[in-house]
């Protein structure tokens, strides 16, 4: 069921890429506008044809320019969520969803549409027209419509860019929860590295039509080259955690492999697994467990490797249990601490340095949602 894509194009959209997405895997294509990421998605859907290309899903050929195969979009089993949702304005939410279903009798279609509405938390709103729904609700209808097709590949084109920040966070959490139902390859196009980090299993960074870096999300997020291609100065790591309890002062206590940490309140039940994004420049290192410090979060770890960066900084990669976080400190500091791979160190982070949208529900939460 894997999705395999190869596309080459000269002008006006230069492109030269090749990638593969496994069933159930979510690949984020990240890049600036003009990097060719949306064109790539459109090539998979059949809405745009590159000069040379090949798109196969589960051995079924959708596009093969050499063999002169180019299925029109309606004959590719693709689910697409557009940036502006592109709902049919004259149909109700339920009708929008049913419009994407092939065959089946009216009764079954209604039942299936109801099931999908439940799945995207829109129970009871099936009768509303798109104009009567909020942006976030429209986005959910668009997602349900894409799933109604029972697609062999799900394509998401900047699906969260048109909603406000609070809605976006909620939708991120819903997508993560929905992953249990997505057993097809999923491709997410976004320019938001944070979004990619929270949602994706794997990230491919696209620049001027070429994939400059590709790898698992933790790998990519601690790779300065990939981040620079994105114009990001902030290297960050994702740390898995589990909600341990809510404190009376508004903080949330989390358990991690490196010990307990406190973060600004996270609306989640006890025991819910989440992922916390920790920015490298917010992490301070110490040889010994510090005392009398205002920072509450001290994680015990071991130095894995030290990578010199450009200028006076170095990246120190720490093993926390079987995960990794990154600290960006000065070369001078690293030398005065005499850090070397294998050394035991303590990483200190301020509770307030973790912004709200840096917390996402973990994909590993699938079975529990």
């Amino acid at each position: 069921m894997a999705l395999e894509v190869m596309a080459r194009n000269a002008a006006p959209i230069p492109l030269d890429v090749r990638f593969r997405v496994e069933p159930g895997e979510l690949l984020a294509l990240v890049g600036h506008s003009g990097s060719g990421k949306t064109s790539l998605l459109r090539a998979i859907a059949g809405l745009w044809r590159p000069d040379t290309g090949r798109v196969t899903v589960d051995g079924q050929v959708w596009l093969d320019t050499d063999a002169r195969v180019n299925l029109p979009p309606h004959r590719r089993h693709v689910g697409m969520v557009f940036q502006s949702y592109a709902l049919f304005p004259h149909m109700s939410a339920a009708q929008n969803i049913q419009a994407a279903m092939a065959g089946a009798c009216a009764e079954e279609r209604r039942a299936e549409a109801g099931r999908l509405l439940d799945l995207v938390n829109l129970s009871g709103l099936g009768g509303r027209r798109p104009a009567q729904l909020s942006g976030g609700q429209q986005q959910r209808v668009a997602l349900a419509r894409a799933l109604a097709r029972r697609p062999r590949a799900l394509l998401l084109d900047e699906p969260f860019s048109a909603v406000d920040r609070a809605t976006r966070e909620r939708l991120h959490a819903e997508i993560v929860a929905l992953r249990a139902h997505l057993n097809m390859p999923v491709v997410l196009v976004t320019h938001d590295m944070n979004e990619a980090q929270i949602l994706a299993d794997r990230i491919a960074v696209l620049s001027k039509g070429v994939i400059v870096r590709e790898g698992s999300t933790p790998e990519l997020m601690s790779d300065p080259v990939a981040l620079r291609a994105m114009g990001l100065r902030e290297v960050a790591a994702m740390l898995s955690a589990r909600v341990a309890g809510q404190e009376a002062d508004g903080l949330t206590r989390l358990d991690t492999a490196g010990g307990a940490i406190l973060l600004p309140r996270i609306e989640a039940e006890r025991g819910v697994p989440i992922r916390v994004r920790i920015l490298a420049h917010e992490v301070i290192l110490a040889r010994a467990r510090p005392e009398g410090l205002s920072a509450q979060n001290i994680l015990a770890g071991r130095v894995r490797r030290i990578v010199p960066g450009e200028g006076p900084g170095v990246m120190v990669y720490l093993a926390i249990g079987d995960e990794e976080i990154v600290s960006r400190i000065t070369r001078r500091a690293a030398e005065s601490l005499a850090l070397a791979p294998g050394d035991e160190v303590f990483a200190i982070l301020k509770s307030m340095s973790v912004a709200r949208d840096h917390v996402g529900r973990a994909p590993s939460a699938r079975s529990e949602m």
Partner: protein
Amino acid sequence: MDWTALALSLRLAGWTVAILLPISILAGRFLAYRRFAGKGLIEALVMLPLILPPTVFGFYLLVAFGRNSPIGGIWQEMFGHQLVFSFEGLVVASVIFNLPFAIQPAQRGFEAVGEQVREAAACCGMSPLASLRQVELPLAWPGILTAMTLTFAHTLGEFGIVLMVGGSIPGETRTIAISIYDRVQAFDDQGAGIMSAVLVGISLATIAVTYALSARIGRRLG
């Protein structure tokens, strides 16, 4: 009151609408979606009847459809009578003359559907025909309705071109507009007045029905 003329005008308008409905959908959709070299020229050609004096346009049609023209000759061969000065000739002239009224609003209607919505229809597995039926026509409908109303009302009132191509043969080419003119020429002001009032009434009713339908569609899309 010349009921024959009124019936003829309604028949002419009906035929014109019936023929132009599929043409406006196909041509309007094509012009709305496609980008190609020479598109501006084609759009200008479609609009030409709008700015040409009806007599000039009628004159050219008379020449083009006359007994000595290729088209007129073939018609004469096939049906045994002239194309000009016949009801069929009027229908053909009326269809051509109404092209801008039929195509332009339909084109605007299809343009309003939006590219992404059409792409979404394709990604939902709809064939081009299914997409037209389920998504494009319901959304472009106000434009098409406007096109047909304009065509209908405009055909009822057209004078110059009918006179040039059809003349004034009772029951064949004498439409209500021609009949009104004839009455005025015969100093029958009362007859002309009644028929004019009837024409105003029908035109107003047509527009009113269209507005009511458009408003209903507007509420539906609200």
